[in-house]
């Protein structure tokens, strides 16, 4: 069992999320950086649908009452166990009665904690993923609070995983994000496309798990008119009339009334979600389909 001593900033339980419910406006949820979350589970030999903890900006402090095999991936939160520094992207043995702790991130934004075994979390609509907007998944549909406990049953034949460590990604060096054209890309005239592709953007601090607002050079559309609502999903880049793109994220809407000028694929979206506020990047058009 683990217990949350300090919750960090919006630390939540996530898993592969909810599939097949977008028709009813229920978003997939799940980790903002799927690559890092999947790596965390793989490192401790968990099945890929096992829950993980997603940490944002700041590390939680967690007490382990029993020994466990864990891994830490994603953002660098300078993790320590009982004060001793431990590396990311590597399976680590934690002794019973020890304390995992860390700092504010120094590289990237989202960190993942995987713990070997079976997590005892109730599934809502097929998933344990926390979806704070509608308050379901995780524990009471909210980010973790001080004193909350999670029961994790050790696997019967638990052994130390063989997968090697992986070199952490330098998220602070991300300065370009690739996207594909969306269905309304052609609403942007050439000159507007050029502005979008040549301007440096950053992510607004008012972003959340539903969507990330970009800051930078606006590309307002003339003759905006009435655009009927159309289908959207995580990674879709919308362009509201103020001309500043919004990237929809894992807890985002399933339909929207703004033109869909692009879409960022899952792997690239994981990178995008590691970009810190103020970190500048270029939007790069990927012409492959």
């Amino acid at each position, binding site marked *: 069992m683990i217990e949350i001593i300090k919750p960090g900033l919006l630390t939540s339980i996530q898993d592969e999320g909810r599939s097949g419910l977008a028709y009813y406006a229920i978003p997939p949820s799940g980790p903002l950086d799927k690559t890092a979350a999947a790596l965390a589970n793989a490192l401790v030999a968990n099945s890929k649908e096992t829950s993980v903890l997603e940490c944002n900006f700041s590390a939680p402090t967690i007490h382990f009452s029993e020994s466990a095999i864990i891994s830490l991936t994603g953002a660098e939160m300078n993790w320590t166990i009982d004060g001793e520094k431990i590396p990311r992207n590597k399976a680590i043995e934690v002794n019973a009665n020890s304390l995992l702790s860390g700092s504010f991130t120094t590289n990237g934004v989202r960190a993942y904690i995987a713990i070997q075994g079976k997590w005892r979390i109730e599934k809502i609509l097929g998933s344990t993923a926390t979806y704070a907007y*509608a308050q379901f998944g995780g524990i009471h549909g909210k980010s973790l609070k001080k004193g909350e406990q999670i029961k994790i049953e050790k696997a019967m034949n638990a052994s130390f995983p063989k997968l090697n460590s992986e070199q952490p990604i330098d998220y602070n060096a991300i300065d370009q994000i690739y996207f594909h054209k*969306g269905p309304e890309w052609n609403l942007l005239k050439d000159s507007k496309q050029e502005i979008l592709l040549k301007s440096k953007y950053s992510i607004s601090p008012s972003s959340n798990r539903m969507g990330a607002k970009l800051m930078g050079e606006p590309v307002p559309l003339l003759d905006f008119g009435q655009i009927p*609502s159309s*289908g959207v999903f995580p*990674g879709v880049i919308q362009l509201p009339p103020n001309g500043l793109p919004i990237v929809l994220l894992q807890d985002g809407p399933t*339909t929207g009334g703004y033109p869909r000028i692009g879409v960022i694929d899952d792997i690239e979206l994981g990178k995008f979600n590691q970009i810190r506020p103020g970190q500048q990047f270029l939007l790069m058009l990927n012409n492959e389909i």
Partner: protein
Amino acid sequence: MKSVQLNNLVFEIHPFGPAAFSLQPKSTTASQDLLRIGEQLFKQKIKGAHDVISSEKDIVIRFNSKDKALVIQALEQLSSDSSKFKSLQTNSETTIYKFPIYFDEGLDWSLVEKHTLQSKSAIVQQLKASSFKIAMYGFMPGFLYLNGLPETLHCPRKSDPRQNLPAGSIGIGGPYLGCYNLSSPGGWQIIGQTPIVLFDKNKVPPILFSVEDSLKIETIDKNQFEQLQKSKIDLITYNTND
């Protein structure tokens, strides 16, 4: 494959990144017909696809990029053999529900009055005389797109959405009346708030009334609004109580 024919409607298939298609009708199509086909496509399941999102502009099909060929094959089959595209049974059972709204403190009344060139009281009268039905689910869980808004009351959405609207907010967005059943960000022109609960997170679909049913708006004052909100009453109970 560039197009697909469903229920005698031809759709262009637009790639939407590596793991989705946007199916868009080739000719002008009533949004109701489009939503109906989206519903059929969702309910009969397309091999290889994990999600179908039906809207008034297009039908979005999502899949794992490795299953793209499977999805194309399934669409080809539906297109070549119209008998494979099962039509849905329509349920003739309909209920008309009273739907209480408190209009006085709507945030965007001045904008709506200016845009429609009508007074607030004239607008409320028109809303009360109308009958509203679910046009589609979408946006966020619990949000409802309702059909039935008189054309003279259509208003554009806001250019910069609000960060947070209280649960029950009622707004105008384009040709729809919308209801935010959970507190959420939103870009519609807010004219009122309902104290009634329409959403159940453990239900699929999570809305307490069905696409066949209608809502009739009734106006309530601040005192009634506060009483009803405190009681957390849901739509069905509200309508069976008196």
